[in-house]
């Protein structure tokens, strides 16, 4: 893996295949993500992008291949275990607790960092109190960071879509992840919302040093913010390189222009 002598990547996806019955959703896909990188995963609809995110975050089990996180094999972990390792994600269709306030939604992102006893929590005393205050401070920093102070106490379900996406990002960040997986963070947004989201993603990367893998359709966005782009088509990786390299790759042009597969 470290043939070039560089430091070991944060995430190594090694020849992973996923199949649903007879359908191969991913076929021997390999992808390394280095620490501090922003990697975009692109490809036409049905190319297997979300499947790749789902297999990394443990929602799907690979049919073959290995996934190494921080050098350790964790191919067969379930989602909560993956989260405990420091991987957080957002969803293509916003998945917030709609009846809860924005603040409470983001607090749920801290659950893995909380170790309470039922009695102390109920009394809100001693360590339980200190713990909640410490967690609240982390959450408040994120609220400040993502500029959502005005909606702190608003019910998540009442927010416009663009803001829900931002709250979801806040919840993922609350887990202080080493690797952040974003599934179409800008889908359905207008230009201004997209620009804001781009800025937040870049700031997360530079301020917290978070490694980010994102799926995105807007090519302008992808080329602007990512260090590296991986292209999937029909469940296979057809290109992997800097935005410029990928833009020029013939296989990518063919995939996007829909050249017939013989």
């Amino acid at each position, binding site marked *: 893996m470290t043939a070039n002598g560089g430091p070991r990547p944060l995430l190594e996806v090694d020849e992973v295949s996923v199949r649903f019955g007879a359908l191969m959703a991913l076929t021997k896909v390999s992808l390394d993500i280095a620490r501090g990188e922003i990697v975009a995963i692109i490809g036409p609809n049905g190319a297997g992008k979300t499947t790749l995110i789902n297999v990394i975050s443990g929602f799907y089990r690979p049919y073959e291949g290995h996934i190494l996180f921080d050098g350790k094999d964790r191919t067969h972990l379930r989602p909560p275990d993956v989260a405990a390792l420091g991987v957080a994600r957002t969803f293509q269709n916003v998945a917030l607790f709609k009846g809860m306030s924005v603040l409470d939604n983001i607090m749920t992102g801290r659950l893995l960092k909380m170790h309470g006893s039922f009695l102390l929590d109920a009394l809100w005393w001693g360590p339980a109190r200190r713990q909640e205050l410490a967690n*609240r*401070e982390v959450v*408040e*920093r994120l*609220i*400040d*960071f993502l*500029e959502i*102070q*005005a909606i*702190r106490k608003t019910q998540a379900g009442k927010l416009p879509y663009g803001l829900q996406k931002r709250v979801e990002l806040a919840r993922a960040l609350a887990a202080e992840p080493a690797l952040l997986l974003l599934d179409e963070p800008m889908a359905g947004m207008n230009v201004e919302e997209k620009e804001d989201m781009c*800025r937040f993603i*870049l*700031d997360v990367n*530079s*301020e917290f040093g978070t490694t980010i893998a994102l799926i995105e359709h807007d090519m302008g966005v992808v080329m602007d913010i990512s260090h590296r782009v991986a292209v999937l088509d029909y469940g296979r990786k057809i290109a992997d390189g800097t935005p410029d390299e990928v833009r020029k790759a013939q296989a990518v042009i063919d995939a996007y222009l829909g050249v017939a597969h013989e």
Partner: protein
Amino acid sequence: MTATLGAQADTFPKLVRANAETLPRKTAIREKDLGIWQAYTWRDYWEQSRLIALGLASLGFARGDKTAVVGDNRPRLYWAVCATQALGGIPVPLYQDSIEKELAYIVDHAEARFAIVEDQEQVDKLLHLRAQCPRLEFIVYDNARGLRAYSEPNLMSLEELLERGRKFEQNHANYVEDEVAKGRADDTAIICYTSGTTGTPKGAMLSHHGLIVTARNSAAAEGLDASEEILSYLPMAWVGDHVFSYAQSVITGFAANCPESAATVLHDLKEIGPTYFFAPPRIWETILTNVLLRLDDCAWPKRKLVHFFLDLAQGMERRRLAGQPVSLLPRLLYPLGRALVYGPLRDNLGMRRVRRAYTAGEAIGPEIFVFFRALGINVKQLYGMTEASVFVTIQRDGDVRLDSVGTAIPGVEIRISGTGEVQFRGAGVFQGYYKNAEATRDAVHDGWLSSGDAGFLDASGHLKIIDRAKDLSRLSTGTIFPPKFIENKLKFSPYVKEAVCVGQDRPFVTALINIDLAAVGNWAERRGIAYTSYTDLSQKPEVYALIHDEVTRVNASLRDDEVLRGATLRRFLILHKELDPDDEEITRTRKVRRGYIAQKYADLIEALYSDRTHVQVEAKVTYEDGRSGTIRADVTIRDVE
């Protein structure tokens, strides 16, 4: 305590230092950060200002240098103002939402060497304009978010500046104290660039002496003391914020509170519960519109109850303002209304503790004024100008009237010129426009400052403002036509956000109207009217019918007036886009730029005076980042009987 506090101190840094000694533990300023109100005492205030000053000194700050201050209201930016003054420099606050071109003009004109700004947004603008403004050397930012990767020279965080300051202090122990001691009362304390409804901005230079005397006189006249709490939410670049949040706070020792963000102001208002509150008419309008909208969504028994008591209180307040007696029944019912409606509503608006509230900047719609006074909120009008360190007149408690802006504050004299223009003089009058002697000569004659407003003094010394002197005109029929007066009547409607009336040398009055997207959008949704955009909504026949009713209402009230009977509106149209400061149609303080609009919308105005009922328009819009685009629309024109 108020009177003696720093009595010998003749500049703001001296006053702040005196506060740090006499009121070391009194809260001077608060900021809501991470969801919690963080308080800083007067000792902190001085210590932080001193450190910033040391940091600036380490960069070679010389007396007379200028610091551009750009950002939302933040304690550190107020300290930057104090630090600059401490070194004998002049702070130049700028509007934080200005586009780069506007910033560039002022930074260049003011010859600012230093800039202390809030965040990346401002840093980006300033870095870009530094190329054209070679005098701008150092840029210091408060919030480092997104800026870690920047490697431009002479760009640093406030922490780095403070660190430099601490090092500098080791070799220059009394540097700041010595510099403060050199300060003189007639030094320029600040240059406030007026937003300028006409042409390029002008920098009004205000002296320490002028600001101190004005702040002290106004505080004494209104009985302000160190226990006041205010919300500092209006742009720092506006002279009003400088006087309320800085000058008066330093003079009396009261606490200024900086909201968490621009979007949370109304919420923070509730948490702070200010005792002293200032808002321009548009904010009062927004609050009133919100109340009325929420009321519309209530169940009908509640709605009826609230309307009954609001009508009752407004009826009483109108009689009181007109000096008429109030009959017994309403007086008996008022306490019940206070328990059921007025008290809870005030509490909900965050105005339960307000002892004095002010409105100024533009005439306020009488209906808005009466609404808030009827709730028991002591809203008063004041009249002021940047060039006068704000205060010229204030309405006194117990002597509030609808049609006047009050009487002169102590130390200010008012006279009316031969052409009907209001002129005044006093300690607060500015030192002149920076590098613009010609404009200064036009504004000041023998120490009397021309306000540009037409008005008159009544027998009891109350000043009444009719309109801008240059706006007041006549129709071709000879009838007096006060555009702003009619526009304000239109704007009382929650559905009308902005209005521009035309009529000079024309046979009748017409209006270009901006609908309020929130209010009309809500109204449309409840009636199941679908719309896609502002432009689309503005041209709906239903919306035209709605606005038509509002225009008819305004006409009815104009007909009641002896003088203005002939100035009723005959035709109107609803503009397809919002008037926007980015398009230079209104100023940053939301004053209509009549001349520019007359030019830009000449086609529409011609159509208003023809028999056409539709106009095709194509308008250029400028976005906040300076890019531009076009909007196409088919604008309808309506006749009013």
